[in-house]
C-alpha cells in the first residue's frame, strides 16, 4: 500500500519506475488480448469487442461504485439482487402505466423510477450501516436476500417481461449508440473517467481512502466520516440504477436469476484492479481493467475449444486469488 502510494507519487513527479504491482492488472489484460489474438482471428473483430464491452458495462458501472465503497472500508453484497429488484420494479410499473399513457413518458418514468429506487436502496444500506452501526457485510447479506426474494415475489416465481411496444421503444438504449459504439459502452466509459477523477483528484476520493485507512484518524481530522461513508453507498445504489437502465432493454425482462452473482463479480473486479479489500486505497482505472479481465476470460473460453467454457468460474477464481496474493506482497514490501 505504501509502496503503491509512493510510486504513484513518483510517477507524478516524473520519476517513472515500472512496478509489477502497479501495472500488474494491465499486463494481465494485455496478455489476455494477445492470447485471444493468437487463438482466434475473430477475437479482435468489431462485433466481438463491442459484445464483450457491452456485456462488461453492467458489472463495470456497478464496480465503479463498489470501488468507492471498498476504498472507504465498506462492502456491499446486495448489488446483484438490488439490480434484479430495481429492474423488476421498473418493468412492473412501466407495464402498469403503459395502458394509460403514451410510450415515451412511460419509458422516462420507468428510467427515473429505476434511478430513484437504486438511490433509495443504496441510502437504506448506507444509513443502516452508518447510523445503526450494523456491520456492512452482515447488513448487505441481509438486504441481498431481501431484494432477491422481493423480485421473485414480484415475478411470482417467473419472469417479468416488458410489454412489446415499450420494448421496441426501449431497445435503442442497449442496441443503439454513437459512431458505432453502443450506449452502455459510452456510459461505462464516461462514468469510469468521472470515477477515476473523483477518486484521485477530489476531497471526496481522498476522504474515502482516509476513512478506509483509519476511520479514527479521519474523524479526528474533521472528516465527515458518516456522511462520506453514506455517500459511497448512495452513489453505488445510483450506479446500480444506471446499470439497470442499460440492462433492461437488452432482454426486456427480469426474473429471480437476474443479476445473480453480480456482486461477487463486481467485488472481484475491484480487487483484481488493485483496490485493497480492507480499504484505504482504491483506483477506478484498475477496476475497469479488472472488469475487462473477467469478461475477456469468459469470452476467450467461448471463442476457443481449448478449455471448456464450463471452467470459466475456475479460471476467474484463480485470477482473483492471484490478484490478492499480489496485493499481499505489496503489503509485505513496506
Amino acid at each position: 500500500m505504501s509502496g503503491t502510494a509512493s510510486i504513484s507519487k513518483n510517477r507524478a513527479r516524473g520519476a517513472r519506475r515500472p512496478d509489477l504491482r502497479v501495472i500488474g492488472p494491465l499486463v494481465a489484460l494485455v496478455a489476455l488480448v494477445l492470447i485471444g489474438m493468437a487463438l482466434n482471428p475473430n477475437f479482435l473483430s468489431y462485433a466481438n469487442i463491442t459484445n464483450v464491452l457491452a456485456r462488461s458495462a453492467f458489472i463495470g458501472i456497478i464496480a465503479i461504485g463498489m470501488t468507492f465503497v471498498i476504498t472507504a472500508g465498506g462492502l456491499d453484497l446486495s448489488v446483484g439482487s438490488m439490480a434484479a429488484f430495481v429492474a423488476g420494479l421498473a418493468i412492473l410499473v412501466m407495464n402498469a402505466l403503459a395502458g394509460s399513457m403514451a410510450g415515451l413518458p412511460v419509458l422516462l418514468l420507468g428510467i427515473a423510477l429505476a434511478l430513484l429506487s437504486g438511490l433509495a436502496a443504496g441510502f437504506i444500506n448506507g444509513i443502516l450501516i452508518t447510523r445503526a452501526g450494523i456491520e456492512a457485510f452482515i447488513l448487505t447479506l441481509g438486504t441481498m436476500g431481501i431484494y432477491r426474494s422481493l423480485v421473485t415475489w414480484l415475478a411470482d416465481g417467473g419472469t417479468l417481461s416488458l410489454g412489446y411496444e415499450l420494448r421496441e421503444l426501449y431497445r435503442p438504449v442497449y442496441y443503439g449508440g454513437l459512431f458505432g459504439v453502443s450506449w452502455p459502452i459510452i456510459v461505462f466509459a464516461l462514468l469510469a473517467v468521472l470515477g477515476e477523477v473523483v477518486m484521485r483528484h477530489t476531497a471526496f476520493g481522498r476522504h474515502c481512502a482516509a476513512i478506509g485507512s483509519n476511520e479514527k484518524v479521519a474523524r479526528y481530522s474533521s472528516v465527515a466520516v458518516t456522511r462520506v461513508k453514506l455517500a459511497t453507498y448512495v452513489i453505488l445504489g445510483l450506479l446500480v440504477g444506471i446499470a439497470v437502465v442499460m440492462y433492461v432493454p437488452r432482454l426486456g425482462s427480469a426474473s429471480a436469476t437476474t443479476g445473480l452473482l453480480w456482486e461477487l463479480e463486481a467485488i472481484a473486479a475491484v480487487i483484481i484492479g488493485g483496490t485493497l479489500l480492507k480499504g484505504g486505497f482504491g483506483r477506478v482505472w484498475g477496476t475497469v481493467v479488472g472488469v475487462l479481465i473477467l469478461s475477456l476470460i469468459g469470452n476467450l473460453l467461448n471463442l476457443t475449444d481449448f478449455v471448456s467454457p464450463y471452467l470459466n468460474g475456475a479460471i476467474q477464481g484463480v485470477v482473483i486469488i492471484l490478484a490478492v496474493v499480489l496485493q499481499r506482497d505489496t503489503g509485505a514490501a513496506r
Partner: protein
Amino acid sequence: MTAPILALRGVTRSFGPIEVLHGVDFALHPGEVHALIGENGAGKSTAMKILAGYLDPTGGEVLLDGTPIRFAGSDQAEDLGIIMIHQEFNLAEHLAVDQNVFLGRELKRGWLLDHKAMRARTAELLASLECRVDPAEPVRRISVPDKQMVEIAKALSRKARVLIMDEPTAVLTERETEVLFRQIERLRAEGVAILYTSHKLGEVSRIADRVTVLRDGTMVRSDPAAGLTQDDMAAAMVGRELSDLYPAKAAGGAEPVLEVEDLAVPGLVEDVSLTLRRGEVLGIGGLVGSGRTELAEAIVGLRPRSGTVRLKGRELAPERVAEAMRAGLVYLTEDRKGAGLLLEKSLRENLTLPLLETFGWPLIDRRREEAALDKAIADFAIRAPQRGMAVGNLSGGNQQKLLLAKTLLSDPDVIIIDEPTRGIDIGTKQQIYGLIAGLAAEGRSIIVISSEMPELIGLASRVVVMHAGRKAGELAGEAVTEGGIVRLAMGMEQTARDNAA
C-alpha cells in the same frame, strides 16, 4: 564484577546501504540495570532487536555467556531466557489476560489446557505488579497502562535471564512506574540482567546502575549511573549543551478566549469549568484515566457532552468537530498512531487531510498541496528521507512534528495539545516546547495536557488538575509545583486550593 550474560562486541548493522549502528560494544551483567538512552533514530531499537534475536548484526558478534551466538530468531533467544518487552503492544486484543500471558507457552494437563493453573499464575503475577485487572478480562477492555502491566507479567512468566524493556513507562503514571521499578529491583536482586530504555532521564537516574548513550549509531559513553547527572546524559545524547529546555513563559492577556462551563461526559467527566485567556499556556494535569483526554475531546466536539463551550464568546455546538476547527479550535491527539496520522499514507496526504476543501474544489490542486508540505517541512524542521514515503516510516519525533503541522494548518486561535512529547527524544522535545511558546507569543492560546510534571511546570503559567473525572483544583504562578500537582492529582486536596485561589 560478575561475567556478563549477554554482550555486543563491535556490532554494526546496516539497512541496505545505510549503516545505522557503528561498532557498538556493551555488556549486560546479572543483577544490573543497564539504561540505553539516545535520541530517536540513534539506534537504540536496532541494538535491542539484535540483543533479542529479532535482527542479525551485519558485523561484530553477540556473546551469550562469553561465547559468540547467532540467534535463529527471537524464539530461540526467548528459549534461552532473553525476553524483550516491546514498546508497541504484542497482545491479542480478543483473548483474555491470562490467555495472553501464556500465549504460545500454555500450561497443559495431558493434551488439554490447564485453565485453572494459568488463571491462578496470572493472578499471582498481576498481584505482584499491583495491577487489579481480572485475568479473565479480554485485553481489548483493559486500559493502556494495564496492557503494559500485562506485557510485563507476560515477560515475568517466562524464566528471564535477560529482560529488555523498550520504554516501558511511556504510558504509565508515576505511581504505576513506581510499582514497575519495585519489580525491576526485585528482578535485579534475583540476578536478572535488565536493559532499559526511556526518554525520561529522571527515571534513568533513579533506576539504572549503568548508562550507555547512543548518538547517531555510535556509542558516545557508557558509565556507572552514580556519577552522571541528567544534564550530562542529555548533553551526551544531543551532542551539545542543552541550555534551558523550556522557553520563557508568555504572560498571556486578560481576554478570555475559551470558556468551558459545567462540562460533563457521562461516566467520564463531571462538571468541569475552565477559562483560557489569549496568549496563555494552560496546563492540564492528572493521572492517566482521570478524564483529561476525554475532557479535551468533548471540548472540541469529538465526544458527546453536556454543558457549554464558548470560543471567543460564541457558543460551540457539541459533536461538531469540523465546525470547531472552522471557528478556530483544534485538538492534537495523544494517540499519534491510532488517531493522529494515516501511517501508510504520504506526508502530503496526511498534512492536508483536515482542510482538503481549501486546496481546490472540485479538484484538489496538487501543487498547492506540495507547497503547503514544503512550508511545513521548513517551519517544523521535519526530517523525511523521501517526500513520498509513508508516514509510518518516519521517526516518532518527525511524526509528531508533522501532526503539529497538520493540526496548525487551519491557523487556529486555540490549540489543545494532548501529550505533546510522548515517546520523542529530548532534542525534538526542546523544538516542540519552543514552538508552543512561539504560538503563545503570536497571541494564540494553548492548553497542554501532560503526564510529565516538568513539562507542565516548565510550559504552563496555570495548571488545572483533574482527578477521577473532576477538576481537583487549579494552580497558578508560584503555586505550580510538582508537589502541588501530585497532591491534587491523587485527590488529596479536593478543591481547597481552588477555593483559596
